[in-house]
């Protein structure tokens, strides 16, 4: 358990549309085959908030991984090579 934000990835079954993604403004979404991977810097409260939100929306959580430890005090900022906007599913 860490107080400092750390980088997490959360893997969800299925693709999320704009509506569901709007529940996770702090995270960036990426589509992997049949799953959605959400990535972001979260401290423990934020992490559990995200998990509770997923439960409420009836999403199927596949995996949670801490990719990197807490950002060091020297302020090495992680810069995700991510699309600058969340993917929106076109119907």
């Amino acid at each position, binding site marked *: 358990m860490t107080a400092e934000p750390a980088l997490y990835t959360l893997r969800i079954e*299925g693709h999320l549309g704009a*509506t569901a993604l709007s529940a996770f403004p702090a995270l960036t979404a990426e589509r992997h085959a049949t799953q959605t991977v959400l990535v972001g810097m979260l401290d423990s409260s934020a992490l559990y908030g995200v998990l509770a939100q997923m439960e*409420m929306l009836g999403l199927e959580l596949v995996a949670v991984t801490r990719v990197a430890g807490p950002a060091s005090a020297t302020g090495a900022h992680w810069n995700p090579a991510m699309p600058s906007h969340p993917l929106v599913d076109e119907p």
Partner: protein
Amino acid sequence: MASIAGEPVHTPRRKQAGVPGPLRLIARDTLQTALDQAASRKVTVVAAPAGSGKTSLLRAWAGRQDERRGLAVVQVQRDQQDAQLFWLAMLKAVRALSGEPVGAEPPKASPDFDGAAMVDRVLAELAGRRARVTVLIDDVHELGSAEAFTHLTRLLTNLPDGVHAILATRRDLPLRLHHLRLEGQLAELRAADLRFSEEETRVLLTAAGITLSDSAVTRLHERTEGWAAGLRLAVLSLTGHPDPERFVAEFTGSGRAVAEYLIAEMLEHQPEDVQNLLLRTSILQRVNGELADLLTGRPGSTRILLGLEDANAFVVSLDAQRTWFRYHHMFTDLLRLELRRSLPGEVQALHRTAAAWFTVHGAHVEAVRHLQAAGDWSEAAELLVDYSFGMMLDGQEETMQTLLEAFPGRTGVNFPELSAVRTMIDMVHGRLEEAAAHLAVTAAYAASAPEDRRPRLEAAVAALNLSMGRRRASLPEVMRHAVFLDQPPAGQTDEEIALGAELRVVALMNLGAMEAFALGVSDGPRHLREGAALARKIGRPYLEVACLSQLGFATKLPDFTAARIRSEEAIALAEEHGWGTAHILAPALISLACTMVWMGEFDDAEGVVHRVDLALRGDEGPGISTLAHLVKGMLHAGRFRLAEAADAFGRAAEFQSRLPEPHALGGYVIAWLLATRARLGAVQDARDALEALDSPLIDSGELRTARAVVCLAEGDPDAALAAVGPVNDRGAPVVHVATVVEANVLAALAHDELGAHKEAHEALECALALAEPQGLVLPFVMAGAGAVLEALPPHRTAHAALRADILDVAHGTSLTTPAPAPTAAPPELSPAEIRVLRYLPTNLSRPEIADELSISVNTVNTHVRNIYAKLQATDRTSAVRRARQLRLLATGNPR
């Protein structure tokens, strides 16, 4: 595209206990059977994620139950921070089982909540049932506090025979039920059990009138993995769909998360007015037609809501009249996200509209939540402050805390008004220092508040100051803040008058309580009676109990028996509401324990003292703590546990030294502390403390008795007699006649040591005569007067019964006052019979009694016969025992 919400059925369709009948739910026989089998065990837990069909399953099961089987349903509200509200709902549901007459007092919330006592009440209600009972608790995961789970565990592990509990939850709960599991008394249904089989999926579709190819059914089942919510959403979208096969193909072919895809599809298929309603009302925790009309800006919402419920479209009514509805949580959350995404500009206005509606309808907590959601922070703060007093009385301090925490930034800086709310929360939890700091901030802000806010704030500050003054036991402080009581209640609107009345009751209670506590002020009882009457008038039983409880203490002087009756009344009213160990009841409990100890009923007093500790819950207020330790000291002293007594009196003295001014019973604390130390053998210490005492009480009767005890311990009976002389001549001031009794007892001991037996007997007889009306036993026992009393022949005293009582207690028996049998009123004895009765405990023969009373033996015989008949006694011994139980042997008979 046809709407799912067809024409609603406008009739309440309830089976029992507010359970809606099944609505197009398919009979999931396997699961129903599993539940039926589980019902033979104590507890069933249904644990599965959102949308697994838990609620539908339980409703269908409940609907199939035999009417004779009792069913109590409790729905935990979303984010239920105050466990109290959950327990009150539970108690109400369980009580409804016994078909209580309408108009029975419904359980009320209060700032004092005792979860353990509440569990006892629920268990007691359940134990009284003859039929089998099922208690159904839905959405248990919403319970906010660990404490609530602790109490729930105790309830579940102590269910009476024939009572079965079913819990539905999304998450495994911190309930320690392993014992039940080991005993095979726990049944569990989990997500995998709740999944629809392919066959059930087929039945579900057929029941909804949807025709699909076998392969489509299989694909739909695989895609949703039998998840109930997914299937229900699919059914809603498929209802009236022109090409169901295509819908299934598109859905199963899409990679989208099931819930989101289907809810979007379902919304898409609704007529515009239904979509509009669902989106705009999703901001609410509960919705009714009127509110929905307001938010959508068009009429007809009630019909839509009823139609949605009938179509089983994730909308359920909350009441038998079907006026309030809530949406499935998962459904709500997705709708809210959709609303924010599609109509971001409207969200704030919707929250404002809702807040205004809830404010007008008196639902202040919801109103504050919506103002916060609208970002109208100042308005939210004002509303919270205005109604915090009522919220506190309704036992919602946890909710208040949550609302406080929702304000942005450092609320103390941004919203100084909120310090009033913080003061209250700290005060309820007994954190007086923090409360005082917040109160200072509130007062400073009130003085400079805008014109329209000032009266409200000043009223709140006055009320808080009064409570604070009482907790600190400072009469001048209380008097200073109670000046507004002299002004007639002002206020233009009914609401303002009501707020004013609550404040007035609190002021009267605090003022009266302080006056009763202070030395030489006599207005206490009058103010408390006035407060109790006003509380009753405005329907605030909690405040009424608070006033009556203080009144129990306030009437302790000059007559303990009156105080006892008052205290018992306050306790009875409190117990009716389940506040038997509430903090506000502490004064009445202390007062009752005190009178019991005076009367030698040590065992019963011990039970009450235990309740005092429960009620105080570690409250360290100097006033109440002084009294609590004083009564403990008295109890130990009466039982001759001197070390414990000295310790308790010492703690009482410690608390007493923190009081700003002397209080009514101050003399007792110091006197008994010194006397107990002397009896323990620390004679020199007691003497030094006595000489060093710099107190206006030095010449009081109470301290003179202490001086006499020290003198006797020093082996100087003459000095002891000199010390108590002025008390017995009634020259020295005393708090209560008990002091004079004690002084006479000590004089008797001194005479006895000097060998003056006649004087010793005279002093004893005098003490007995003074003690008789209130049945005071303690002064004799405390002073160790047993031997002297034994030496006093029973026929030489007119108080043989009291003498016998005292000797019983001195020999370690505790007297009792049994509760009167509810069926029979206590027998009425005539004065003449009472006179004879009082000779029965003596060993005088009937002719001797006749002589004593100057009546004939025949008359005595007649009286004795009547006494035996009335007391249902067969001989002298059983008559005496019965008479003692009924407290007929003291003339100050309270009944």
